[in-house]
């Protein structure tokens, strides 16, 4: 019961991230979403008290809830860019599109994977739509950092899928993936620095020297 609730609230987080205008808000919301994931895994762990799930939950807490948001907000402090992250489409339309995306994933799962049982299906719908919403944010938000967060949201969505429809993908893969994410974010951060120092802005849509 509360598991579904949490899953839906993850989706809700995604929506609210779509609605977010300022970058700091985005980061906070991301931390929140990750925290929900942490709770999800933790409860799973508590239910069938397996140590490896505890560890995974701990990893999430460490990396996604604490480290990465901290890192991101530190970057935002370091590079003095306006906090707004530049919207191609305004929030209302964005939310509408996000809704459409959710519908799409609903259609997809229900049409193509009818064999699934209800809960798994619902979870899959949610995670897929979260993933795609992350993709949406990467497409329709101008600033580099927004794209980083978008990537992270996709990761979250996938993690949700991994956690809910399967009983957790194999252990060391799990760990590897989360470290991987961490490294990726680090590297992206470095590049954000570089972009800022070279271009004195992080509007990646202005990065269009190379074309054709």
């Amino acid at each position, binding site marked *: 019961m509360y598991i579904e609730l949490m899953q839906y609230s993850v989706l809700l987080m995604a929506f609210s991230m779509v609605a977010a205008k300022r970058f700091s808000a985005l980061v906070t919301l991301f931390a929140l979403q990750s925290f929900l994931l942490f709770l999800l895994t933790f409860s799973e762990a508590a239910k069938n008290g397996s140590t490896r799930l505890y560890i995974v939950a701990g990893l999430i807490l460490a990396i996604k809830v604490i480290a990465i948001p901290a890192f991101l907000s530190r970057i935002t402090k370091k590079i003095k860019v306006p906090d707004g992250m530049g919207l191609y489409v305004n929030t209302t339309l964005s939310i509408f599109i996000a809704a459409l995306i959710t519908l799409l994933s609903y259609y997809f799962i229900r049409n*193509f994977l009818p064999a699934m049982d209800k809960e798994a299906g619902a979870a899959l719908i949610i995670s897929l739509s979260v993933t795609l919403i992350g993709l949406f944010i990467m*497409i329709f938000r101008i600033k580099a950092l927004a794209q980083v967060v978008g990537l992270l949201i996709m990761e979250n969505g996938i993690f949700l899928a991994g956690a809910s429809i399967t009983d957790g993908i194999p252990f060391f893969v799990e760990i590897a993936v989360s470290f991987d994410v961490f490294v990726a974010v680090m590297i992206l951060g470095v590049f954000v620095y570089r972009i800022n120092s070279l271009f004195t802005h992080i509007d990646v849509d202005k*990065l269009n020297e190379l*074309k054709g």
Partner: protein
Amino acid sequence: MEGFVVDWKLSFDALSIFFGFIILLVSIPSWMYSIGYMQGLYSGGRILFAKILLLLFILTMFLVVFSANALLFLIAWELMSLLSYFLVTLDPHEEKASRAGLIYILMAHIGTAFMTAAFLIIYSYSGSFDLSAFKETCLILPLKVKTTVFLCFLVGFGTKAGLIPFHIWLPFAHPEAPSHISAIMSGVMIKIGIYGFLRFVLFTLGVEELWWGNLVLVLAALSAAGGILYALMEKDLKKMLAYSSIENIGIIMLGIGGYMIFVKMNQPLLAVFSLAAALYHIINHAIFKTLLFMGAGSILKTCGTKNMEKLGGLIKLMPVTAFCFLIGALAISALPPLNGFISEWLLLQALFYGALAGATFAKMKIFLALLAGILALTGGLAAACFVKAFGISFLAVPRSKKTETASDSGWSIKAPMIFLTALIFIFGLFAGPVFKILTGVAASVSGLNNGAAAFTFNVLSLAPQEGSGVHLNNLLLSGALVLIGIFVFSIFKVISREKSITYGKTWTCGYYSVNGRNQYTATGFSKPFRVAFSFILMPYRKMEKIRDSYYHVKSFKYEVHTKQLLNEYFYKPVINRIFRFAEWSRKLQQGSVHIYIGYIFLALVFLIIFLKRF
């Protein structure tokens, strides 16, 4: 089957040997010619490079002709194009040459693409690249497949041979290449295209339907007439020769198309006859086109130009070249008693007897008569074209400084030309025996019943059909000509007692001085044709007044050009379309990473929606 293995199986049947002979016939003199031709034009290292390339080129041609395996054939074929491309663009500074080479190799490649398709279609039935296997498979191919294959072959080989819709590379590549290369390309390489057509369409695929033959005949007629018409318009000597190659390919294809329809009209004897005539013309064209290109080359070497408007009076300055060129011109205009005349006469006979024999094919009679007419027109235009070529560039007074000081080149240039001139006479005079051999070739490769006996009346004279009372003994004819000539000459020597001959200025309505500037020009010579055929040639003129003040026009600049129908209305538009589309498509990639991710998203959505379709 895992990967293809090239097996180096060669076969030496009559057709291959015939073409091998032609390769030798042309490449040996050209090789010798190249020695004298290249020195002074290129640096030493480049000459060596060119020689190696030339050797490889000739070898690949042999490989193409003798390969008994389609894959080997294909590889050798493409190699041939590649090497000749390198030879065309021998001088890396020549922007024009590199552009010409580009067009050439591109067209060649497209042709090869068609051939590849055809080969693969056959192979997917036969499962082996062996030519014999191909032959067996082609018996059982369904008709639609056969037609497809035929069309592919027609385009593929037609491109190499320079048949008219696919000819555009030829007038670019041949003039830009070094002359000995032009000689080989025009003399042999385009014939290799014919070889491919014979080998794969006639003797592997077999003639399935009458309209195939008709199609070939129509294209051939187009090539013959169109080629010579464009040749007539040219004032660039080598370009003119290139166009005339197109014409001759047309004539050869007439013979081959004749074979195709005669087979369908079940006239095996005629079929063999017409094919043999085509083979004869292949030899002849190889000889005199090589010779003519060599002549043009030695002019280019000494006068530094191949523009007729700048030449003139060379018959006194370089007599040997002039004589050889004259003989070549006579031969290529199909004038008796030289070899070109023989093959064209034979082709006319083939058409005539075809028209006579095809009793059940009433409309074929008219068609063949029309073809005969076109052949005659071609002959007439060819004569005009070469009167112009020889008359303007060799006769009268030099038209430029550099031409006045021209002189015959060294022996390594002269000897091959003289040799080929001799060949022209030989293949003209001993038509009987030569034709006997060729009919043997045609009969044996086509597997039709051997008419070799039927076409020669006695050892020396040709007879298209026994009992028709038509014999041509060229030896006799030329003997008669010579005798009569001597007779006439001596008679007139006798009856007109020795009169004094005074040498004076040329009379031009009392105009005081005749010099290079006010002679008749090549452009002027071809004017009537330009006007008469303006519906094809679409001539247009550029006039430009060069004035030093508003009132006083110092001089006029006047140019006439003709348009290439196909280029204007087919090739250029297509190419422009492609480029415009490409330019437009660049808009899809404007550098915004967001849009790029958007593409991924769209692809995903597309697949999700159409998942059931896959």
